[in-house]
């Protein structure tokens, strides 16, 4: 059977898209979690920085136009942490640098008590900067104090790294779980298809009945089409077989009538030329009936060839039965049928076809064998199971051996013998349908030897 072209795999498509989706979702989960956590951590640092700035500003006072700021210890201790982040500060009075680290500056909001935050770089380190202002009112003037407080971000970076690691683990876990789920979902879905495929494949070739097991809704249309296809196939096979049987009936019954009349008349007629004519008539009827039988058998075998019923057959028993059945025919010509088999010879095949083929071969031997000779039929087990039929007839003409199995081709020796030329063709076709072979040989001492092997 030709290999069906395959366009990708449903399972792979499903798995790839499900896992791809899971990976995308896991990545998104990781990013969102990390950003949110980073934001929360930053807010923590900001609120401490803001509080420190506010406490410094709280400590600022103006005395006689002089600004006094006593940097409170508490404000720095609240900034101390495990990572020993460094703290920088600068104090400005009306935008004039007063104290701290020169160069540390950042713009502030106009309103007091509203710190602004920004991330920047100072002295070669990433810092978080808070700027806050306080307007001091003295006896005769008002002045604005601005504090810029900066803290390096080592602690925050550490926190962020921990959070990222956790978020990554979470994402990976999610991905793994989703991947597992997608494999499971895919194999469950594909499993349904597999079950259907198996139960279709497991049926014998003769079983063309509808498929009745429940299937998922999505597969129902496919199964319905399959059932209707099988229904039509079954019907058309049945019609062909019925037609062949009916054709056989229509052809054979009138032939039988004519033949029986001709034979009966022959018993009553004495005149030589009438007898000659009647005999010719019987011969013609035999010829056409044999041709009709073989044509119909051939048609039947062709119809059945597409769905060969392979079953266990005992070749020895099958041939033995045939030999027994053909013995009366052989008797009529005073021929002996010798049958030999080495026990049971089990093969896998279509019994009807094999019987037909062997019968045609034995018929041939009976036709060509000289009277009172023996036709030897043997069934052997090895090297390949085979049936051998040998007679003492004229044998096959050497130069025609290759063409004898062609349809309607008869050997030169066959002139004057009734036949259609289909016998060997049928045997050959049956052999071919069973991956076997039909071998024609001439025997030493005259006669044909036909071997049908499986």
């Amino acid at each position, binding site marked *: 059977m030709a290999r069906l072209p395959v366009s990708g795999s449903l399972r792979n498509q499903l798995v790839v898209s499900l896992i791809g989706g899971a990976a995308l979702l896991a990545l998104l989960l990781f990013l969102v979690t990390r950003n949110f956590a980073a934001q929360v951590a930053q807010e923590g640092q900001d609120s401490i920085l803001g509080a420190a700035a506010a406490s410094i500003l709280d400590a600022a006072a103006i005395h006689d136009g002089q600004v006094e700021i006593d940097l409170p210890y508490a404000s720095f201790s609240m900034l101390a942490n495990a990572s020993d982040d460094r703290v920088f500060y600068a104090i400005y009075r009306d935008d004039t640098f007063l104290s701290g680290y020169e160069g540390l500056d950042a713009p502030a909001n106009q309103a007091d008590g509203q710190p602004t935050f920004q991330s920047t770089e100072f002295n070669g380190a990433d810092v978080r900067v808070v700027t806050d202002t306080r307007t001091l009112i003295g006896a005769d003037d008002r002045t604005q104090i601005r504090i810029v407080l900066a803290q390096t971000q080592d602690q925050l970076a550490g926190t962020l790294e921990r959070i990222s690691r956790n978020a990554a683990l979470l994402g990976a876990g999610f991905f793994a779980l989703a991947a597992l789920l997608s494999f499971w979902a895919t194999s469950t879905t594909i499993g349904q298809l597999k079950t259907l495929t198996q139960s279709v494949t497991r049926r014998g070739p003769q079983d063309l009945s509808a498929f009745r097991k429940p299937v998922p809704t999505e597969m129902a249309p496919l199964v319905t089409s399959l059932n209707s296809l099988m229904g039509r196939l079954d019907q058309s096979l049945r019609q062909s*077989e019925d037609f*062949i*049987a009916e054709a*056989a*009936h229509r052809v*054979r*019954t009138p*032939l*039988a*009538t*004519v*033949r*029986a*009349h001709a*034979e*009966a008349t*022959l*018993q009553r007629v*004495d005149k*030589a030329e009438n*007898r000659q004519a009647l*005999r010719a008539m*019987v*011969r013609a*009827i*035999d010829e056409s*009936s044999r041709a009709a*039988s073989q044509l*119909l*058998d051939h048609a*039947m*075998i062709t119809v059945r060839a597409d769905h060969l019923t392979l079953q266990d057959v005992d070749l020895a028993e099958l041939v033995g039965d045939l030999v027994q*059945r053909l*013995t*009366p*025919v052989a*008797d*009529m*010509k*005073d021929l002996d049928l010798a049958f030999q088999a080495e026990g049971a010879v089990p093969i896998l095949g279509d*019994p*009807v*076809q094999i*019987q*037909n083929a062997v019968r045609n071969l034995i018929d041939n031997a009976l036709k060509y064998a000289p*009277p*009172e000779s023996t036709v030897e039929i043997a069934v052997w087990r090895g090297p390949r199971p085979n049936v051998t039929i040998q007679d003492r007839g004229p044998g096959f003409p050497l130069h025609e051996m290759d063409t004898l199995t062609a349809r309607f081709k008869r050997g030169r020796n066959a002139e*004057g*013998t*009734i036949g259609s030329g289909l016998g060997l063709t049928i045997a050959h076709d049956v052999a071919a349908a069973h991956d076997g072979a039909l071998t024609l040989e001439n025997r030493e001492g005259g006669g044909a030897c036909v071997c049908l092997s499986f």
Partner: protein
Amino acid sequence: MKYLLVEDNQELANAVSSRMRLDGHVVDHAATLEDASAFVETGEYDLILLDIMLPDGDGREFLKRHRASERDTPVIVLTARSEVSDRIGLLDLGADDYLTKPFDHAELEARCRAVLRRMAGKSRSVVSMGGVVFDPLAGHLTVNGEVVQLRNRELRLLEQLLGAPGQILSKQKLADRLFSYDDDASENAIEVYIGRLRKHLEASSLKITTLRGLGYRLDQDG
């Protein structure tokens, strides 16, 4: 022998039964399954010849009923259907043999003989004449207590001669009985078989006389 022929084709039935009567058999003809059942119930038959496609049903049904009723009359089925499809089912249903139409009358005879031989012991018709006992079913001849096994053609030839003692049987007619229609050289070959029969009958009081140009005749000495 008494036969029941179940066949709906009147022409074929006439031809077959007239031919069988010619051979000295008694033949009843039934054209339907109903008739056939009636015949079987009222008469005893040695053998039933059964067609498959009948106007009031399938011959296989008759066969099944026949077997179920435990009658042991052998049945030979005459089928016109494709051999391939019917072959196996028929024997399973209890037919003793079957024959595909159109058939050679000699083959029908041979098959009947084979089936009847298998029913050994039942209603055996033995011909006894002039110190010779002839058992056509078993195919042997007993001459003065000595058994001679006959080949099929010798047997059929002897059957013809014993069937009409004292009458002249033409060479052609005898040849028709003995040979299939495809060998032409048959009329002279008959002499060979006549020769063999003469040898078998040597010790008896039967002898086969040649009437030149007319044929042969079976005569009894004394």
